[in-house]
């Protein structure tokens, strides 16, 4: 009687080893460092989403643009939707992107480029052993962004930029609305 008890206890002991979960790999569904979510709206009808045409977004100093889709050729760098998510730098308080509209147009005068620098403060928050920390951002309240057309003589194609959420905590909400 005693022995069966001990043996069963040992088995219980052994089985608990097999039930331990692997927690060294960061689960893709865990909310980590959020990207900046931008939505594009029609300037003449501010409540209607408007699709961009061949928008290419390149970070300052980066050789390639942000990849928006699974295409294998250069079309992966352009988007024709109304919503984009772009990563902010987690080691400095400013990130600069060039937003290139009609980027694939053969006529260079029809390509519009606006350069936007986003200014923010950062806060690193612990997630888990596997994921480490995530960085949350808060837009600079006085000067959240700086927008310049390239070349400077041109008009800005983004006619109005509105900061909707000054805290970037997750990717489930739109942080910035762009009207054009």
């Amino acid at each position, binding site marked *: 009687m005693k*022995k069966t008890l001990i*043996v069963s206890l040992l088995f219980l*002991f052994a089985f608990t080893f097999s039930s331990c*979960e692997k*927690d*060294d790999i*960061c689960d893709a569904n865990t909310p980590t460092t959020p990207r900046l979510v931008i939505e594009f709206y029609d300037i003449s009808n501010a409540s209607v989403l408007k699709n961009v045409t061949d928008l290419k977004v390149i970070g300052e100093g980066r050789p390639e643009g942000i990849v928006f889709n699974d295409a294998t050729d250069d079309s992966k760098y352009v988007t024709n939707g109304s919503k984009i998510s772009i990563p902010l730098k987690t080691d400095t308080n400013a990130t600069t992107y060039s937003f290139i509209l009609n980027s694939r147009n053969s006529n260079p005068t029809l390509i519009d480029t606006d350069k936007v620098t986003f200014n923010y403060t950062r806060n690193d928050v612990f997630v888990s*052993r596997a994921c*480490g920390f*995530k960085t949350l951002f808060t837009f600079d309240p006085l000067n959240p962004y700086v927008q310049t057309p390239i070349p400077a003589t041109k008009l800005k194609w983004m006619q109005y930029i509105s900061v909707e959420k000054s805290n970037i905590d997750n990717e489930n909400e739109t942080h910035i609305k762009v009207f054009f």
Partner: protein
Amino acid sequence: MKHTLKYFFSIGFLMSLLFVQAQDTIPNNSSLERTKIVGEIPEVPKQVTTKNATATKTDTIVPVKKDRYGVRVGVDLYKLTRGLYDENYKGIELVGDYRLTKNYYAAAEIGSEDKTTEDDRLNTTTKGTYLKVGFDYNAYENWLDMENIISIGLRGGFSTFSQELNSYKTYNAYPYWGEMPWKTSGEKFNGLTASWLEVVAGVKVKVINNIFVGFSLRMNMLITDKKPSDNFENLYIPGFNRTYAGNFGVGFNYTVTYFVPLYKKTVKPKKK
């Protein structure tokens, strides 16, 4: 991978325990059968006078068996030697037990650890001391004057410690700006505490005179855990070892102990 391997070895050790347990039962059964046969044989020649029967009885004088009672003290060799090859670890554990009854032992471990844990995105240093108190039940029936132990036991563990976040990496699912470097923090959390329960399976073998070597495997269940802050958690607890997503943990030790005999008790033969 290292951890997974550890479990494989642990399970291997457990299996070996079961073998020892299995070995134990065989001689007992056979000896039982033997006495039965011996008991039956005199039944057959009924004609034998009673005088003979009384004579055989006086022959079977059982030698008096005495159990030694006392204190066993020692050290965990694994923790002691790990500091020699692992520069991230310094620790010591003293172990002791006191024999209460034939099979029950009061047992305790006291230790101190200083461990730097290097995870993929976190580097932390935990320093602290711990105390574990409980009992062991010896399930092994020794022959003659053997004093080996195969035990299962329970401990309550308590630890006070500090945890320092040395450096960390932010997780970046979209590494457009490249892999971010480690950030140094140096944030230190003092006055942390934790308590837990341990189920202990152990073996102790007498090697020479009063010196025993043994090892034990432990399954831990965290009961209380004072977190450093809302923003952080205890990744290692002295005595409890690495923490997991739940409240579960594992441990083991490899001990050398010295038995200090205090008194002897005569073993009463079992009534059957």
